[in-house]
């Protein structure tokens, strides 16, 4: 297999890993909505943790993106 083709396939496969992050972010925000619906006074405290959790989950998706960039930068990667 051509190294350019292999690199492009590798980049595409790295992008598949973002699915887990999508599930995670949906779960965090779903739980936040549910907990605010149960107890509206808790919104300020729980909201602070929600944003921290969201940023950490999104970071995982971006680690996958960094791997895609690394593969793109390797020899024969850019096609």
């Amino acid at each position: 297999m051509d190294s350019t083709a292999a690199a492009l396939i590798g980049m595409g496969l790295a992008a598949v890993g973002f699915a887990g992050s999508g599930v995670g972010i949906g779960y965090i925000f779903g739980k936040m909505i549910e907990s605010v619906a149960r107890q509206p006074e808790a919104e300020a405290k729980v909201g602070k943790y929600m944003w921290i959790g969201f940023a950490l989950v999104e970071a995982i998706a971006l680690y996958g993106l960094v791997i895609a960039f690394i593969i793109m930068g390797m020899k024969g990667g850019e096609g």
Partner: protein
Amino acid sequence: MKQHNPLEHFELHPLIELKLLGIDISVNKAVIMMWIVCILIPCIFVLAVRGRRMIPTRLQSLTEISIEFLRNMVIDNMGEKGLKFFPFIVTLFFFILFCNLIGIVPGSYTVTSQIIVTAFFAITVFIISQIVGFAIHGVRYLKIFVPSGVPKFIIPIIVPIEIVSMLARPLSLSVRLFANMTAGHTILIVLFTLALGLKYIGFLPFFFTVALTGLEIFIAFIQAYIFTILTCVYIGEAIEMH
């Protein structure tokens, strides 16, 4: 459509070539943006407190709210001893925030989309937390790798895992900030290319880029907040050791 590499916009070309002892310190766009940020932050704060009154002006109120917010964050995570680090935390937060935000202006460069910049911040935070830990606790700081309540025979397995997870902290801090900024701007570049490429319906991707720029500003605030609060947590863990 001719294929452009969207990451081309992140390349830096020197404007004024300078060399110091063989190290390339030439002035390029990122350096000029950092200078602009360094001038902008003191200007905003000086303007906010000039002619300060009991009933604050809007800019004074804005800076008071942000300083109080950061102060509460420092006290929550680091305790009263943490107030020694308060100037460092405020500087870190505002520098990262303005470096993230300055990339939104068309034609400028996002300073924190270079991994060397974010890695420097993360390594600084890591070194500060280790030095604080050893300075306050001495050699007993190494007990932080053994969590409490662990049976004695598992310790040889737990300690390498804890060491690796401690070393992963600067890596994750730097990559999180760098990747968020780079990914956001890359999406914008790709969408603008699409908006320019379509003949008659090019305004549709353009409206989407307006929404995405709003999201970018929001992500800039969130990422600066996350970096700062994780710094507070890491240094607070070194101070209190649990």
